[in-house]
């Protein structure tokens, strides 16, 4: 009990610390003018607190808290899903065909038209239903979460979320989500504040402070609610997250409400034991729910082009139908009367009535449309669906995209856009949780001008390795050629330079050396022992620093670390070490680091901070007390924070930490001893993407402090607008003449494999934009850490200037941004000639202006030119807007990746949305098309699976079109020979089986198993990915090429067969072939041709492929035999056809062979010529692999890999390259 109350006290202090803030604006009275709106339309909601039963009847009946994200329900599923299905043009076309087949107009039986349509539509609807079902389950999961609700007499019972109704009083505990939009009544803190994490709403990780009304503060215990009654008048449900208008009538008083009192659904209670709240907006009315958009159904680029291809085929279809029907009409008109044996005048069959050629024309036209329907096969859609589902399954099952830590695998949540993965050109990435783990680590520090914590970064290491290899190579080539003279000298110089950069060059020695250095930095992959502390340096650790020369400054450094912060210690179970909680995660790492160095911050009271310090002279830990006199807060304008403390001896110190330029400006002349060395270290740290901060201190004389303090207190007491100015001025007065102690570097820890992944993606020609809600400095740090930014890059900052911002004139602001854009653009155009890499860093406010329609084009033009783009302080809405604009402006495939609810807009807007299924909420994953447990899986997902899927789908569609056109056209040629009467050459069953059994399975094998190159090669040659970006596998050139090929094939099949089989005897017994025989023979040729054609396309034959291709051909013969065995009234022309007639004719087999050779020859020759003289990258690699040259000539293989990389300015390798260039440049200069 005692302990509990103690904890509570601590809590209070913790909360006070925040309220201590001297610069927080007051928000409560801002909304007063809005109060008059209440009762007006749009502001008419009334909530009776603690009387939920009143809201179950009219007129105040509000929806329950049940939230549904499903598209359909049991009633609406059928009509709506059907409507969705028949919105697709192709389906409508098939429906038309099926409808026309009923009145016997069609050449086929209605069943053969309707069954496949039902199948296709059914499958798609089933898919919809399953997807909707999983959404339903997800909803159920959310809706059945538990929350404590006041039932009566002060007792709280657990209820599911969906049972909540407006007016309910709920009690939410720490780390729980709010079930709906609540009005905060009171919290575990006495002053009614609570901390809320709004990560899911805006992606910001810092905690937000909410505060209850004073009037409701007393409602802080369960029993208080027995008699509690109040009425809220407020706005109607709306999606605006940052506004709320309303008032509370309670205890005969009326109190205005503001957003400060509103706890939004989808946010989380943090650092607060519990809160009481009353439900205002439930279920679908909640602001977060209103903000969510239904995920749009996405279609891939290939599929969109497929639509156009369908139009082309439809045009072809209409053309040949017109030819056919015109032919039919003409023939009827001119000659039909003479054909006495047809007796056309006695018209039973109206389409062929010679006296009505126009009617006949139209009827024949309709019939032809159906007959040649094979040009637009319904089975294409079935096959694509099947293939995509299988592809998605293979993506899901890939072991190399399985994260063992979280036990999650990659999940393709929709299978619609697999192939789009192979065409991505832009990646829009979130930062926190996506690139970084949202975890800070103390990495390095520079004290007294000496850097601790490892000296060499990975880039230097890699550069030195590479250069060593180069040196090795030069050395080998010394004998023989003269041209290497220069490089030998270079090598010598580089050895001489070894001191300039430790371990840059110098062969074995250097490698050894660098390895030792490397070992000093713990491998980034390894989990450090202490969370937030990834630092190892023998000189500082284990109290070793006490043996240093200038211990005094070191102690002061550690004191700054341990005292200048807003954190509080938290006991951590059994461990001797303390844990800390603080406003910013960096402060936590400082406190942890200070603890490790022997300065444990162990307690804080309102005005005293306790440290357990290591006494360097004795090596014993002493507990010391520091009186906290003032705390000058950190904010983005000041970029520094100070504390003024007095120690036990009464000495007053000011400890200050802050950004480098700020601190450097405020140093005393004698405080700059370490400035030069520290600056050098800082730039190194920054290059590595570490977040740096300087530490400084000064001693203040008591008199000086007293006089200043009166000034400061006065400023603090001031009410009104000058208050801020006065405070600022007062701080300015004391924070100067500082003494620089050193710097610390904190790493915003990257997710596993992020730099490597970005490197690979950059090499594959992808552009990566970083969109983050974080501030600019943080974003840039990460930019450096991920190698998106480089030291030698030209940086363009797009920031709203102060004047423009204050002028509040839209015009001026736009002018300002526009001129910035223009200037940057000019410079880039100039710089591009000199090959200067450039980066654009845009601030959220500037972004808002730049994305306005008038300027956005110029802005995007600039942004696209830059090698990397970083947008900071962007809102979720802006993210979505950027995604849309980039997609529209560049016309390139855009992928958005993020992990939080704030990325949902972007994820839905982009062509492909990827969600990181990390620790945070599921919103991003739910909205995404693919979910990854780790960012670095993106590399494999795009470069391997994307590449494969794209090529597979493209090849598959082209081939599918080929086989159907080749088949369909033979029907058309037959019409020419049969007087355009509309007869079909083949048996109905042959026609049906063509797409169902005899040619469909190899296509699926192609779409699932085909690999142009293996996964390893894909990763080794990221440039292969550009085939998808340039869309070379599904270009119009290719499409028309294949249509041409199909036409040639059909002509060859038809003419060869017809010429050979007419009219002489088929066999030795003098029997001739009739319609059924010729149809079957021709059909055999078609089956052989299309199946052999696919064998020519496939480059990767697994046994499955073999079985399916050759099995399909075999199937045809088996079918013929079985079909022939049916009673003649079923098999008709096919009766005994293979066994008795054509199978026994040698001619049949000989002709089949001939036709296959003739039809495939054009494609074969084309592909030989293309391969030999205009080979594509993948074909070259195939050849190298085939000849095993990659094993026999390794250097060539590696060089090919080097060459195949796209030249890029971002990524780790680019940085290494730049470093090497830089070093070489330096060597050359030294030489001169």
């Amino acid at each position, binding site marked *: 009990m005692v302990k509990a109350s103690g904890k509570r006290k601590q809590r209070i202090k913790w909360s006070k610390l925040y309220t201590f803030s001297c610069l927080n604006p007051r928000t409560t009275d801002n909304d007063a003018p809005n109060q008059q709106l209440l009762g007006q339309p749009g502001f008419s909601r009334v909530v009776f607190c603690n009387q939920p039963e009143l809201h179950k009847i009219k007129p105040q009946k509000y929806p329950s808290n049940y939230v549904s994200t499903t598209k359909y329900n049991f009633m609406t599923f059928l009509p709506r899903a059907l409507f969705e299905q028949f919105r697709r043009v192709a389906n409508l076309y098939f429906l038309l065909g099926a409808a026309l087949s009923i009145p016997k107009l069609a050449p086929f039986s209605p069943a053969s038209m309707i069954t496949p349509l039902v199948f296709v539509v059914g499958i798609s609807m089933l898919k919809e239903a399953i997807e909707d079902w999983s959404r339903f389950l997800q909803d159920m999961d959310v809706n059945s979460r538990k929350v404590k609700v006041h039932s009566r007499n002060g007792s709280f019972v657990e209820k599911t979320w969906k049972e909540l109704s407006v007016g309910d009083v709920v009690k939410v505990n720490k780390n729980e989500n709010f079930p709906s939009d609540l009005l905060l009544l009171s919290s575990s803190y006495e002053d009614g504040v609570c901390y809320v994490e709004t990560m899911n709403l805006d992606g910001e990780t810092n905690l937000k402070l909410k505060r209850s009304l004073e009037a409701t503060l007393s409602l802080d215990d369960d029993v208080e609610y027995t008699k509690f009654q109040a009425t809220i008048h407020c706005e109607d449900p709306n999606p605006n997250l940052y506004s709320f208008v309303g008032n509370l009538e309670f205890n005969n008083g009326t109190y205005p409400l503001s957003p400060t009192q509103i706890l939004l659904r989808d946010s989380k209670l943090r650092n607060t034991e519990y809160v009481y709240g009353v439900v205002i907006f439930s279920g679908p009315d909640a602001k977060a729910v209103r903000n969510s958009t239904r995920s749009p159904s996405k279609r891939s680029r290939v599929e969109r082009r497929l639509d156009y291809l369908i139009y082309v085929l439809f045009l072809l279809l209409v053309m040949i139908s017109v030819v056919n029907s015109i032919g039919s009409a003409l023939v009827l008109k001119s000659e039909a009367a*003479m054909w006495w044996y047809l007796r056309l005048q006695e018209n039973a069959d109206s389409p062929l009535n010679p006296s009505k050629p126009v009617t006949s024309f139209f009827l024949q036209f309709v019939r032809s449309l159906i007959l040649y329907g094979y040009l637009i096969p319904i089975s294409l859609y079935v096959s694509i669906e099947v293939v995509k589902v299988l592809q998605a399954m293979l993506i899901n099952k890939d072991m190399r995209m399985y994260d063992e830590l979280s036990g999650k695998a990659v999940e393709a949540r929709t299978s619609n856009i697999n192939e789009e993965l192979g065409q991505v050109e832009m990646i829009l990435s979130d930062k926190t949780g996506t690139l970084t783990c949202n975890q800070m680590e103390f990495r390095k520090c520079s004290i007294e001008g000496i850097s601790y914590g490892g000296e060499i970064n990975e880039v230097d290491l890699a550069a030195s390795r590479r250069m060593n290899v180069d040196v090795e190579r030069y050395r080998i080539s010394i004998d023989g050629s003269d041209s290497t003279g220069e490089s030998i000298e270079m090598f010598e110089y580089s050895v001489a330079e070894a001191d300039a950069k430790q371990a840059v060059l110098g062969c074995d020695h250097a490698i050894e050396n660098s390895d030792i250095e490397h070992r000093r930095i713990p491998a980034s992959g390894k989990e450090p022992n202490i969370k937030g502390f990834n630092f190892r340096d023998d000189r500082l650790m284990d109290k070793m620093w006490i043996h240093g020369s200038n211990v005094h400054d070191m102690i002061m450094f550690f004191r700054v670390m341990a005292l200048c912060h807003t954190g509080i210690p938290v006991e951590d179970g059994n461990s001797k070490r303390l844990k800390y909680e603080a406003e910013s995660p960096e402060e936590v790492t400082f406190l942890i680091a200070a603890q490790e160095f022997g300065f444990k911050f162990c307690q804080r009271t309102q005005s005293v901070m306790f440290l357990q310090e290591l006494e360097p002279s004795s090596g014993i830990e002493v507990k010391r007390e520091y009186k906290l006199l003032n705390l000058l807060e950190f904010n983005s304008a000041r970029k520094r924070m100070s504390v003024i403390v007095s120690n036990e001896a009464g000495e007053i110190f000011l400890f200050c930490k802050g950004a480098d330029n700020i601190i450097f400006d405020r140093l005393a002349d004698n405080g700059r001893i370490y400035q030069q060395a520290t600056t050098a270290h800082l730039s190194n740290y920054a290059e590595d993407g570490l977040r740096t901060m300087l530490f400084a201190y000064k001693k203040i004389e008591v008199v000086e402090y007293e006089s200043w303090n009166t000034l400061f207190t006065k400023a603090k007491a001031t009410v009104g607008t000058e208050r801020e100015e006065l405070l600022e001025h007062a701080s300015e007065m004391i924070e100067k003449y500082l003494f620089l102690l050193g710097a610390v570097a904190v790493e915003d820890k990257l997710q596993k494999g992020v730099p490597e992944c970005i490197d690979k993606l950059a090499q594959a020609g992808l552009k990566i934009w970083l969109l983050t809600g974080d501030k600019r400095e943080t974003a840039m740090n990460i930019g450096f850490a991920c190698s998106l930014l480089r030291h030698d890059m030209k940086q363009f900052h797009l920031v709203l200037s102060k004047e423009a911002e204050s002028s509040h004139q839209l015009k001026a602001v736009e002018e300002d941004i526009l001129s910035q854009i223009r200037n940057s653009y000019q410079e880039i155009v100039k710089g591009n000639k000199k090959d200067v890499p450039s980066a654009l860093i845009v601030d959220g406010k500037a972004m808002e202006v730049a994305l306005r329609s008038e300027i956005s084009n110029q802005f995007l033009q600039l942004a696209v030119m830059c090698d990397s783009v970083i947008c900071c302080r962007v809102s979720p809405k802006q993210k979505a807007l950027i995604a849309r604009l980039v997609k529209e402006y560049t016309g390139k495939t855009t992928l958005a990746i993020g992990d939080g609810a704030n990325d949902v807009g972007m994820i839905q807007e982009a062509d492909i949305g990827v969600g990181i299924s990390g620790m945070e909420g599921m919103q991003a994953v739910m909205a995404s098309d693919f979910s990854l447990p780790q960012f670095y899986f993106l590399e494999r997902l795009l470069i391997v699976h994307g590449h494969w899927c794209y090529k597979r789908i493209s090849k598959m569609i082209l081939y599918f079109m080929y086989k159907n056109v080749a088949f369909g056209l033979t029907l058309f040629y037959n019409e020419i020979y*049969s007087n355009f009467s509309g007869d079909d050459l083949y048996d109905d069953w042959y026609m049906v089986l063509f797409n169902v059994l005899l040619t469909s399975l190899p296509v699926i094998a192609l779409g699932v198993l085909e690999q142009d190159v293996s996964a390893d090669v894909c990763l080794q040659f990221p440039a292969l990915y550009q085939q998808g970006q340039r869309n070379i596998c599904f270009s119009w050139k290719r499409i028309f090429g294949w249509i041409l090929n199909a036409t040639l094939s059909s002509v060859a099949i038809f003419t060869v067969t017809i010429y050979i089989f007419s009219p002489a005897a088929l066999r030795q017994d003098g029997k001739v072939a009739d319609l059924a025989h010729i149809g079957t023979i021709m059909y055999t040729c078609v089956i052989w041709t299309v199946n052999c054609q696919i064998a020519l396309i496939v480059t*990767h034959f697994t046994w499955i492929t073999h079985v399916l291709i050759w099995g399909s051909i075999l199937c045809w013969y088996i079918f013929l035999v079985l079909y022939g065995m049916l009673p003649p009234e079923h098999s008709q022309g096919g009766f005994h056809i293979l066994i008795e007639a054509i199978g026994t004719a040698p001619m049949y087999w*000989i002709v089949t062979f001939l036709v296959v050779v003739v039809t495939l020859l054009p494609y074969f020759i084309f*592909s030989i010529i293309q391969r030999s003289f205009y080979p594509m990258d993948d074909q070259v690699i195939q050849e190298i692999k085939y*000849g095993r040259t990659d094993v026999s000539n390794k*250097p060539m293989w590696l060089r090919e890999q080097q060459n195949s990389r796209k030249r890029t300015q971002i990524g780790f390798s680019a940085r290494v390259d730049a470093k090497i260039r830089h070093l070489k440049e330096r060597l050359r200069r030294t030489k001169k």
Partner: protein
Amino acid sequence: MEGDGESVSSSASTALVAADVDARSILVLRGGRSKAMYQFTQQSLPACKPVLTPTSVISTLFLMGIFCIPIGLLSLHASLSVVEIVERYDSECVPHQFRLNKVAYIKDSLIPKNCSRYLKVPKYMKAPIYIYYQLDNYYQNHRRYVKSRSDKQLRYGLQYNDTSSCIPEESNDGLPIVPCGLISWSLFNDTYSFFRGTDELRINRKNIAWKSDRDHKFGKHVFPFNFQNGTLIGGAMLDPNVPLSDQEDLIVWMRTAALPSFRKLYGKIEEDLEANDVISIYFLNNYNTYSFGGRKKLVLSTASWLGGRNNFLGMAYIAIGSCLIVLALVFILLHVKNPRIIIT
């Protein structure tokens, strides 16, 4: 002059990764079936990856060419060994006075349709010699014509009454016509008889239809009792006492041809014909091809293992074969002149 020891680091690391994954995969594997499943899901099924290298291409082309030419020669030889005599008789058999109005001639049933022609056998013809009649510009493949039959009726006769597909030749006096439909109605009715000198050559008119047709498709108990009884007579009459399964002329005719120019088997001469034998043929020129400008021909032909005379097949094979060989040579030339260099 390339260095050897330069590639160590990167390849070593990839090897490490691969080994790691393999090790993991072994953990997963338990049985043989799961191994195949694993390979499938990891897309690492063993596969052959043929590549069109110059050598393989050239040898493929060459081999195919080598393979095609002999087939072509054989086929051509077979085709050339066939002796074929084609005699067009439709215009010659119309008496001079009717030459300007052939349709009136053929439609007038009172005018006798007898006609005779002489043929000289150019080469020795070994029995069996097949007699065909050939019709040109006759659309047996017309949709209306093709559909105008009832297979069930042909097999079951009057037990099967639905003759709607046979319109307009479906019924007569309320009874379905057997066999119904336009095809049978327009049955070819020219007849031929052959004499060598004065000896009549025996024509075997049995076994000219497919066996399956005779045995299964045309009923043994179906008799054409009311065939050609209507107002409009199309072609030949049938003997109402012979079941359909024995009406081989009809069965042959009912096998509709795929092209507007077709031959149908009339009978077989089972005697050898010597070269320079003169054959006199007596026609009954009944069938009306004059309305639509069709032609009638009589064909006498022997058959080889490949069937009738058809030089196209052999020629095509030879052409393709030579084409392939020429292509192979061209590619050899190109390859020699411009050898494939992978390294650029």
